[in-house]
């Protein structure tokens, strides 16, 4: 018979699950768990400076490792502060287990100090959530939470644990086995056969891949399928890196800020093979006018994604890696000279314009200069806004999990804590965090965490002292009525970083910005690289919100 407290049991179960780093912030209702954590020889705690930071640090670890990672927060405000990071994980299907302290069972519902119904609040933003009512339940709930987070379409799971459940003593015979993912659903072989038939019969097919390919670890199969069947391949924001950007079949990113040629090629396609993507509005524009002449093959592990936005002619429910393995031998080798030469001519007629690429003080030039100074082994995170789109357009992504960005939820403040998490999970890699001055200020407190951990994170701050994408939209679509998007004050970010103990480099004043940049990126430890950006630099091309993808302006 084994006997221990609920808090000790949680720790042992996390250790047995292979968890080695947990991000979090302690508080009254989770102190028993922190007390047990202080005795753990296997799990290291990273103290965040805001619970949202802790949630994103866990996400950063999970986005790099591909397995569920853990964050802790206390009850009430600690728990509610986690919600944004959980919702972000939900929309991008990131496996994560959030553990929150709760007031004692007998005090739930009494408006006790720091009480919040985090169980109720996280129902719509988690894959599943638990309110644990006895220490014995933990034996099932903890492994279940991990199993759910990593099975099928991954996602966040929240476990709310009252303080007295953490202190309750529980006796049991044996530890449950660590969780493993459920088996993927068996795919319909007839549908796979039919998909192969459509691919073999198509004249102008396009492969459209999403983040599901990265979650499934199927990037290699995608490249094999594209090469075998001669399929031009476009990637969603979440899928960048699945096919190296310099691959001859790559069409880069589609959608709102995709290149003109990419959206034009999609418009002409007669077969769209959608793999692990979900027809998001920023990717496809006006749904009814997306690929109007194409039949659709849709492969996804989540059955509710099939036929959700667009009806598929062939819908295959299954793990995309497994389905692609079955599909590959049924697909004919095709050179598709006519279609690919047409694709090539659209590519050269309507390329992505990246003005001033040679100037490291311009948006595209800066992204390019950073990419030139580091290898493909580096991890790139971004915040949300213009800088995010410039990086998505111009950075040469060549491998899965090289690129971590907030796609579905679009959370400003994502970049820095996710970079910290990425560096914790992959200490040998350089982590670049591209950010804007608006986003950077939303989780700037995590500079303290970064300095304390001394991680190899380089923050590249594109500073236009405004909410640039808001400014851009007001300028383009709201009659230039610019409101609440230009900052009056201009903080000195290099001084702020210095205050946290982080070195900075100012490209504005550097005599040789390219050399200063390379030197900063290749020195060990954290660093802030500051570059002023002209507020009138806009992201082009752009599909007006609500417009069809072929109605792009600029670029």
């Amino acid at each position, binding site marked *: 018979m084994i006997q221990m407290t609920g808090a000790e049991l949680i720790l042992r179960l996390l250790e047995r699950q292979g968890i080695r780093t947990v991000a979090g912030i302690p508080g009254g209702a989770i102190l028993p768990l922190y007390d047990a954590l202080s005795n753990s020889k296997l799990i290291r705690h990273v103290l965040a400076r805001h619970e949202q930071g802790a949630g994103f640090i866990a996400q950063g670890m999970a986005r790099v490792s591909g397995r569920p990672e853990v964050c802790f927060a206390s009850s009430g405000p600690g728990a509610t502060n986690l919600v944004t990071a959980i919702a972000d994980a939900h929309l991008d299907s990131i496996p994560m287990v959030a553990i929150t302290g709760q007031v004692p069972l007998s005090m739930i519902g009494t408006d006790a100090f720091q009480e919040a119904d985090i169980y109720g609040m996280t*129902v*719509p933003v988690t894959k599943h959530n638990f309110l644990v009512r006895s220490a014995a339940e933990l034996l099932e709930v903890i492994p279940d939470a991990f199993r*759910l987070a990593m099975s099928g379409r991954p996602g966040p799971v929240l476990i709310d644990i009252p303080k007295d459940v953490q202190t309750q003593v529980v006796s049991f015979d044996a530890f449950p086995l660590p969780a493993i993912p459920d088996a993927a659903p068996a795919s319909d072989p007839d549908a796979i056969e039919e998909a192969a038939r459509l691919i073999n019969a198509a004249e102008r097919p396009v492969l459209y891949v999403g983040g599901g390919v990265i979650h499934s670890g199927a990037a290699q199969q995608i490249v094999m399928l594209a090469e075998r069947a001669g399929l031009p391949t476009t990637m969603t924001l979440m899928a960048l890196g699945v096919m190296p950007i310099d691959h001859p079949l790559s069409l880069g990113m589609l959608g709102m800020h995709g290149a003109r040629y990419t959206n034009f090629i999609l418009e002409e396609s007669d077969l769209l093979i959608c793999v692990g993507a979900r027809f998001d509005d920023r990717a496809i524009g006006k749904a009814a006018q997306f690929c109007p002449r194409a039949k659709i093959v849709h492969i996804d592990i989540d059955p*509710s994604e099939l036929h959700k936005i667009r009806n598929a002619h062939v819908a295959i429910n299954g793990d995309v890696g497994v389905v692609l393995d079955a599909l590959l031998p049924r697909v004919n080798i095709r050179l598709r000279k006519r279609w690919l030469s047409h694709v090539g001519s659209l590519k050269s007629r309507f390329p992505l314009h990246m003005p001033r690429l040679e100037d490291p003080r311009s948006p595209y030039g800066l992204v390019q200069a950073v990419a030139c100074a580091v290898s493909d082994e580096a991890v790139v995170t971004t915040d949300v806004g213009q800088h995010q789109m410039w990086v998505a357009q111009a950075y040469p992504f060549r491998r899965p999990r090289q690129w971590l960005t907030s796609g579905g939820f679009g959370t400003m403040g994502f970049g820095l804590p996710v970079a910290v998490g990425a560096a914790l999970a992959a200490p040998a890699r350089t982590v670049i965090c591209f950010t804007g001055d608006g986003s950077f200020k939303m989780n700037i407190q995590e500079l303290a965490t970064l300095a304390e951990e001394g991680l190899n994170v380089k923050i590249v701050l594109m500073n236009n002292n405004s909410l640039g994408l808001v400014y851009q939209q007001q300028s383009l679509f709201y009659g230039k009525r610019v409101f609440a998007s230009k900052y009056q004050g201009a903080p000195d970010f290099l001084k702020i970083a210095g205050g946290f103990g982080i070195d900075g480099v100012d490209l504005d004043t550097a005599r040789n910005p390219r050399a200063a940049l390379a030197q900063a990126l290749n020195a060990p430890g954290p660093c802030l690289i500051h570059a002023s950006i002209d507020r009138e630099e806009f992201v082009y091309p752009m599909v007006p919100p609500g417009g069809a993808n072929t109605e792009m302006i600029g670029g």
Partner: protein
Amino acid sequence: MIEQVAEPLQQSGFAKVVLELEVNNHPGVMSHICNLFARRAFNVEGILCMPLSDPRRSRIWLLVFEDQRLEQMVLQVEKLVDVLSVRRHGAEHEVFERLEKFFY
């Protein structure tokens, strides 16, 4: 919970459907299900829930309109971890008809 949705979509004129759900029986299951319908502004006309002979399980009957979103709605309900099965019946199913005498 459903009443919180300000303006439910105009649904009269659609056929009704009865959904029979088998679910785990613990606090929170109803919340997961009702929340799913509410946040999609999908009105639930009738709801009935009782534990089964195995007290770890309950059966929930839902009366809903058959609009074009129902298919997606059912797929979302099936994704809930505590929902073990979903069966669809036509409006002729008598579970809610028999209940009517308690209301009128």
